[in-house]
């Protein structure tokens, strides 16, 4: 019997069209627009000016606090301007726009492909390096990684969990990475283990990726302390709290963090980025992006430089299909539709999903019949039908009592609702109101 989390969960169609297509380097774009807010936390501060020459890997924006991240140029060329550009958040944000000239890398980056296994840096140096390289959680939440590795005094971590679940339908970027860059990724895991001073790391992979499970199970024999655990397929197993429950059967308390139960979770993509940063001096300026969809003629996995416009990815995957209804940044469950194809790829872009007009249409809204399907689907044990009503009536105190802040915004409730209610839309609204109240209370 395979392990999984207990509460709730749903089973959307998997549709992993691009799982057998190897990662291809996307040709360099003519210009890139690199947003200065690509992570959770304070936006970075621009340190280049119009007309400056930059090389690949040069720092162009600096972290402005503990929860913030450096941003590096993904191309070589001239800074054209610093302007507000529509990005994947749906708003105009400050971006650094760079005209691409050639492909000249910063000299400190080691561009050889040989595997470097021995870790020479100390724990502190590793964390400092990860911080300097601008690494954020590549699973999609883009939380700065060095913050997760800096364990506050009094907390004890005894296990590192590596998230190779990729529970979002359609997306295959982590899957491909686990097959093609398995050794690098595993060294990355060892670096993370050293930084956290733990001796055990568990890699959780859903059972719909048997090739990745087999490949990694074979390789981990050379890496002491790392174990591979196949998991039963169920959405949202890639959620931190769900994955911890599935792998080590510990429950993160309401309002708590994984480190409260002695665990830290990192994505496989992050582990790979950590390897490149620590062993090869390569900051985070490119990532794997899946371009997929029912209508896409060539579903693919691309290695993309941050700041490349989405239109270029779609072009490389066979062009925009005629019947396109929505272009989604991320997966179908948690992703967000973009309002223009010119939005740039950021550190958090795990996939570009193209949906047909029919498939992307919302269900017609009707009334809630109290069937409680949303309650059984919620992996956090909340009551979405109640939360939507209370949000509409602005009952913020009740929302807080009913645990709205525990919502992980996985969308299982909206997915399962037979009345087609926009449950998650309202819950997000309620959550933002309640979090504003909580923040003002703390001040």
């Amino acid at each position: 019997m395979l392990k999984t989390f207990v509460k709730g969960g749903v089973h959307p169609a998997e549709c992993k069209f691009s799982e057998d297509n190897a990662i291809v380097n996307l040709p360099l774009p003519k210009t890139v627009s690199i947003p200065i807010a690509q992570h959770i936390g304070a936006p970075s501060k621009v340190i280049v000016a119009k007309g400056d020459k930059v090389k690949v890997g040069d720092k162009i924006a600096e972290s402005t606090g503990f929860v913030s991240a450096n941003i590096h140029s993904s191309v070589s060329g001239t800074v054209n301007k610093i302007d507000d550009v529509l990005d994947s958040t749906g708003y105009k944000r400050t971006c650094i726009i760079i005209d691409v000239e050639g492909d000249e890398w910063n000299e400190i980056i080691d561009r050889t492909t040989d595997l470097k296994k021995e870790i020479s840096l100390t724990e502190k140096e590793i964390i400092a390096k990860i911080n300097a390289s601008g690494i954020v959680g590549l699973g999609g939440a883009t939380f700065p990684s060095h913050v997760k590795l800096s364990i506050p005094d009094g907390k004890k971590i005894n296990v590192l969990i590596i998230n190779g679940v990729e529970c979002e339908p359609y997306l295959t970027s982590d899957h491909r990475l686990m097959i093609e860059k398995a050794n690098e990724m595993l060294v990355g895991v060892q670096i993370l283990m050293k930084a956290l001073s733990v001796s055990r790391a568990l890699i959780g992979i859903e059972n719909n990726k048997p090739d990745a499970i087999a490949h990694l199970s074979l390789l981990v024999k050379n890496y002491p302390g790392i174990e591979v655990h196949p998991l039963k397929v169920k959405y949202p197993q890639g959620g931190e709290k769900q994955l911890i429950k599935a792998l080590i059967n510990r429950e993160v308390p309401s309002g708590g963090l994984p480190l409260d139960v002695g665990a830290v979770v990192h994505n496989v993509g992050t582990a790979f980025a950590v390897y490149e940063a620590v062993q090869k001096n390569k900051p985070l300026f490119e990532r794997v992006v899946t371009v997929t969809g029912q209508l896409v003629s060539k579903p693919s996995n691309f290695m993309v430089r941050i700041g490349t416009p989405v239109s270029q990815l779609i072009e490389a995957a066979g062009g925009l299909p005629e019947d396109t209804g929505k272009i989604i940044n991320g997966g179908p469950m948690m992703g967000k539709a973009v309002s223009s194809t010119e939005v740039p790829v950021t550190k958090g872009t795990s996939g570009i999903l193209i949906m047909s007009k029919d498939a992307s249409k919302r269900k017609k809204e009707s009334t809630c019949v109290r069937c409680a399907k949303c309650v059984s689907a919620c992996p956090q044990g909340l009551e979405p039908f109640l939360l939507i009503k209370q949000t509409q009536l602005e009952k913020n105190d009740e929302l807080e009592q009913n645990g709205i802040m525990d919502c992980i915004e996985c969308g299982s409730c909206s997915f399962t609702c037979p009345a087609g209610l926009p449950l998650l839309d309202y819950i997000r609204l309620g959550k933002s109101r309640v979090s504003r109240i909580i923040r003002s209370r703390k001040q």
Partner: protein
Amino acid sequence: MNTTILFTIISLSAVGGISAVILYFVAQKFKVFEDPRIDLVTEALPAANCGGCGYPGCRGLAEAMVKSDDLSPFFCPVGGNAVMATVAKILGKEVTAKEPLVAVIRCSGSLAKRPRLNEYDGAATCTIVSSLYSGETGCQYGCHGLGDCVTVCKFDAIYMDKETGLPVVIDEKCTACGACVKACPNKIIELRKKFAKDRKIFVSCVNKDKGGIAKKACEVACIGCGKCVKVCPHDAITLENFLAYIDPNKCKLCRKCVEECPTNAILEINFPPRKIKDETGGNTEQVKSSEKE
């Protein structure tokens, strides 16, 4: 008479009598004193319970007014000066009359004038749209057109014009309670001074983008050219972030700015159609029809 009935009547009356006495003393002991003027003031208020005054319902306002020595921080926007005068009379306090206000919609980006670049099909409230992205058009500041202001208005004073996709305020019904101002996530609704005959002149735009971007997104956007600022004889217009604003307290309704505005972003409402002389002389021509429905 049957003795059973007699005993029942007597014993029940006795129990009733004793309870009444006990209750009387208990009520005396635990009596809560309430200023009788609170009830009087509550009665004088319009009982709309709209919350426009900032207090929870009319009684909440009445309590606060009775307790306070000074009436100047309070105002019932629904009842206006008349009600405030009555309240002042009841409480024997002074009150100064306030200028009547009316809500105006500061966006003219109708379906025809502001091209839609994408289609939104999520939950139908403006608050959610604005929490998700910049909206269906190129202008992230303008009206989302899903009618949060209409839902929140307790006086049916706002409706959605289906043709333009913009809300319309019915001046006669608007009490300036300010509920719509709070409900609008883009802050396009403003409470402005009410002039005679409901005449209005205001910049019907809140776009803070540079001129070129604003104009591309919407035909009638304020591009921040500053022509109105120069032409205004009363120094009533200020320009900030590429957006002009007419101060209603300084504006004398001379309408010079309306003529000058190259994008027709400044609206004049409820004015008689003006006649100006054509350059060739002789013919008169109606230039800008007054916009009132």
